[in-house]
């Protein structure tokens, strides 16, 4: 039985290559679509998730990261004086205008933080360092935006909001979900670069770390009770709100999710068609088996074993292809993420898809009239 399943699959190499190509295409399509969705989702909340903060204090009503609205820094001192606060830092997010060395102007998002504080710092710094931001008028950008921001090397000079800025380092893989790249600077410089209407004594966010032994939830309640006109979120809450906004309140995420689901449907259809065609190629042989006395259970096992083999081999090949695509995406504007949980999920999906497709064929096979074997 196992031998028949394997031989039916592997004997005709061209046929097998076609079957495998169908499965690989379907799986890669699904991986790319869901990887893009995951990449977009993660990108929207990247700065929050890497902030190392327990709590975020935001202007009342701000629903997501990219629309930080400044409030008086008096709140910052109120936070600092709240029992249970281990550390608090002011944090800036505002849109600015970046003038490239060649004179072209682009929109950017300026992120201001206190280097060395450990809160709200950029990560994956591949050239230069966070400490270099302590130099006058210095900024960090992601290497993926070098070309679009007109930066060739460390030391290149630009203008941000009519202030001089010098690139002192590059991060890797910190993308913005909007079309405006993130530019990291000290909190003080970020105010200069963005000229907030609320003046210099303001902040867009306060990042809070709970003192040892104090739970973030407990501290959140204390801060909520103490502070007016601001909202206090745990990092997970604010991250979720931001992701939810971009993915579902705007059409962006829905479009990506729809594409992912379409990928899944197309993938399932391709696999179903491929496995069905492979089964139909051998339909007369299944009729012979039935005439010889094979039970439906025997036929199920042959077909399901074929489906599992197809799924596992297709999955293996798809993972190799997907690996290269994911790697290539790291240098592009839209990242495709494939965490290990997704890799395992894809194996399960591949097996389920192939077995489900085989079940469609099974229905056909078990209804074969064994008398067909006597017809010419």
């Amino acid at each position, binding site marked *: *039985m196992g*031998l*028949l399943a394997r*031989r*039916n699959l592997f*004997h*005709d190499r061209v046929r097998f290559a076609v079957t495998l190509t169908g499965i690989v295409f379907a799986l890669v399509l699904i991986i790319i679509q869901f990887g893009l969705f995951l990449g977009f989702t993660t990108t929207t909340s990247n700065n929050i998730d890497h902030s190392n903060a327990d709590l975020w204090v935001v202007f009342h009503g701000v629903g997501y990261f990219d629309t930080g609205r400044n409030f008086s820094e008096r709140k910052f001192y109120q936070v600092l004086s709240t029992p249970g606060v281990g550390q608090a830092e002011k944090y800036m997010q505002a849109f600015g205008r970046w003038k490239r060395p060649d004179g072209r102007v682009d929109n950017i998002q300026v992120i201001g933080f206190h280097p060395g504080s450990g809160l709200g710092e950029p990560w994956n710094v591949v050239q230069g360092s966070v400490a270099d931001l302590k130099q006058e008028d210095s900024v960090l950008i992601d290497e993926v935006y070098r070309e679009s921001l007109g930066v060739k090397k460390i030391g290149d000079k630009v203008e941000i909001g009519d202030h001089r800025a010098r690139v002192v380092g590059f991060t890797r893989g910190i993308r913005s979900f909007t079309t405006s790249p993130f530019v990291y600077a000290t909190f003080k410089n970020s105010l200069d670069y963005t000229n907030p209407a609320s003046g210099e004594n303001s902040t867009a966010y306060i990042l809070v770390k709970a003192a040892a032994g104090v739970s973030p939830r407990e501290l959140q309640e204390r801060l909520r009770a103490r502070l007016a006109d601001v909202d206090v979120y745990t990092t997970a809450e604010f991250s979720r709100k931001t992701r939810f906004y971009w993915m579902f309140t705007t059409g962006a995420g829905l479009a990506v999710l729809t594409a992912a689901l379409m990928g899944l449907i197309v993938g399932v259809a391709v696999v179903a068609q491929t496995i069905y065609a492979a089964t139909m190629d051998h339909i*007369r*042989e299944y009729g*012979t*088996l*039935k*005439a*010889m*006395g*094979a*039970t439906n259970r*025997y036929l199920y096992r042959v077909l399901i074993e074929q489906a599992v083999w197809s799924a596992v081999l297709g999955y293996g090949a798809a993972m190799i292809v997907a690996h290269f695509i994911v790697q290539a995406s790291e240098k592009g504007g839209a990242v495709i993420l494939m965490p290990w949980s997704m890799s395992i999920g894809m194996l399960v999906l591949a097996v389920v898809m192939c077995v489900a497709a085989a079940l469609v064929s099974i229905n056909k096979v078990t209804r074969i009239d*064994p*008398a067909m*074997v*006597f017809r*010419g």
Partner: protein
Amino acid sequence: MDGGKRDYVIRGKGLSKVYREGATELRALQEVDLEVRAGELTLLMGPSGSGKTTLLSILGCILRASEGTLEVLGRDVSALPESELPRIRREGIGFVFQGFNLFPTLTAAENVALALDLRGIRAGEAKKRGEELLAEVGLAQKARSFPADLSGGQKQRVAIARALAGDPPILLADEPTAALDWTSGRTVIELLQRLARVHGRAVVMVTHDPRVLSFGDRIIHLEDGRIVREEKSVTRAIEEPSFLEVHPVAPAIAQEISI
């Protein structure tokens, strides 16, 4: 006839088969009574559409008769549920098809072993038995060949070896020589004859080929779904005691033709 003393492996009584398609009705078989004995090669003959293959399918428990009763190896299969029939086929009947119906992706030995796998025989044992059966049909050296590399006659012998895999007492063959030249066809018919006469199997064979008539022990002629005539072959007829009583020279004839 001393039918009661014979080993009947199949008894069909009043077998009819009606195919219906909408208002159209086709009576493929009409009230056929038939008994098949072990140790005999029975030939079913008749023009196209006479009901030979339908009868063979019913005898092989592949098709159900619309009317009549069928007893196979002592069991009334007409009363059995559909789900029981595969077991009857698996345990009691071997099939040989006109188009061979070998699995092209399996070698000759694997084709035979597959029939044993169906019966739950372990792979190693099935492979060994498969090779033995191929040796019995004179194809030991072709055990590892794929069907595409075999001649028509060789393919049919592999199919016969496969049909013998479960050691079934009944062998049903649907025009097994039709796709073969006479040399290959003769080898196949001789093999089937040997399986009946020497090994005591009941072999029923549908054929159009008049050249195989002399090999059959009984020849049943069908027309329009009915048995119109039944003959015994000369060799079998002269073995009957009644024949010897009527024809005193029969022993001499028998000696002459080396029975």
